[in-house]
């Protein structure tokens, strides 16, 4: 083997390239000297003390890299721009469905009335499920926000999201109440309180205010309720309930 170059010796030191280098070092005194000099330098680097990390280290790392990451909020932002349209479309679909059902069947048979109510309920479920998913995204972001770096945390983005979600939340809550879906209306009422709280908070909040907000989200158990509701919606979308005198049942929380 020819004399290994410096790069090969470095790789040999780290155990990455051993083919022939070891044998050569056994035979060649000058390369051995070169390698020992490299070894001395790299061994001395090990004397650098490993800094002790405090309990907040993970948050520090997250804050350091968060700015460089693509904004996770872009998902919510995308939804945000479509939100008024989606909410309007959802409500319009409900109105049209109700109108068609009412016009086409002046004297509906009992079974048909049940089926129509199930159609309305499913439309509402899909629209509300979507709305809850967006609300959940925003609340999770707020719950997981790191401690404010410079005294205050800017939540203006979450506030705008909460304001927009609030509008559609009211629409869905009223629709659910008028459709007799008490459980959904009650969940949306709980969510409305939390959204109101976020929307009416200052746009820059202190760590204490952030903790209060988190506590409010936790106390209401809203994230848990939303998740349970979401999974029930998914189940009901996959397996439509058979028509029956009970009217398809309501989501219970």
């Amino acid at each position: 083997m020819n004399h290994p170059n410096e790069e090969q010796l470095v790789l040999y030191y780290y155990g990455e390239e051993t083919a022939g280098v070891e044998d050569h070092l056994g035979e060649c005194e000058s390369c051995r000297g070169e390698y020992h000099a490299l070894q001395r330098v790299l061994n001395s680097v090990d004397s650098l003390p490993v800094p002790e990390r405090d309990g907040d280290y993970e948050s520090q790392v997250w804050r350091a890299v968060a700015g460089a990451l693509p904004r996770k909020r872009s998902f919510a932002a995308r939804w945000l721009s479509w939100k008024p349209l989606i909410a309007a479309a959802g409500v319009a679909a409900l109105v049209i469905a109700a109108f068609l059902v009412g016009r086409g069947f002046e004297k509906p048979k009992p079974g048909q009335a049940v089926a129509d109510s199930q159609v309305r309920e499913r439309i509402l479920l899909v629209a509300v499920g979507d709305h809850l998913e967006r609300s959940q995204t925003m609340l999770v972001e707020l719950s997981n926000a790191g401690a404010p770096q410079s005294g205050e945390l800017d939540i203006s983005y979450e506030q705008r999201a909460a304001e927009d979600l609030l509008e559609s939340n009211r629409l869905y809550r009223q629709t659910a109440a008028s459709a007799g879906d008490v459980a959904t209306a009650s969940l949306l009422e709980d969510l409305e309180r939390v959204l109101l709280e976020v929307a009416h908070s200052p746009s820059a909040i202190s760590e204490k205010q952030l903790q209060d907000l988190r506590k409010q989200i936790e106390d209401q158990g809203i994230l848990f309720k939303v998740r349970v509701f979401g999974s029930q919606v998914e189940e009901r979308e996959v397996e439509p309930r058979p028509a029956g005198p009970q009217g398809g049942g309501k989501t219970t929380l």
Partner: protein
Amino acid sequence: MAESGSSEDAGDAVHALPSHTPGPERLLFSGRVQRCVAGTLDQLSRQERTAFVLRHFEGQSIEEIGAALGLSGSAAKHSIFRAVQKLRRALEPLVNVQS
């Protein structure tokens, strides 16, 4: 007088015992090396520093470092090599004088 002489001898003998802790010269040298290493690491590019730290301190393989930094294996190797070269240039005068 004789007693005081013997206590001085005993003190010398105690000082001559090998210590369990590094002596002041060794501590001074270690401090200089540490400062030099820290200063040189600060001067490396972010990619070189990350690649070197992952390889030298974390013991990650070239493939893992390449994957972490979005580099090919040879680019990761080269980053480590450049970092070692710079450390060598900075540390060799210190380390060789000591040895």
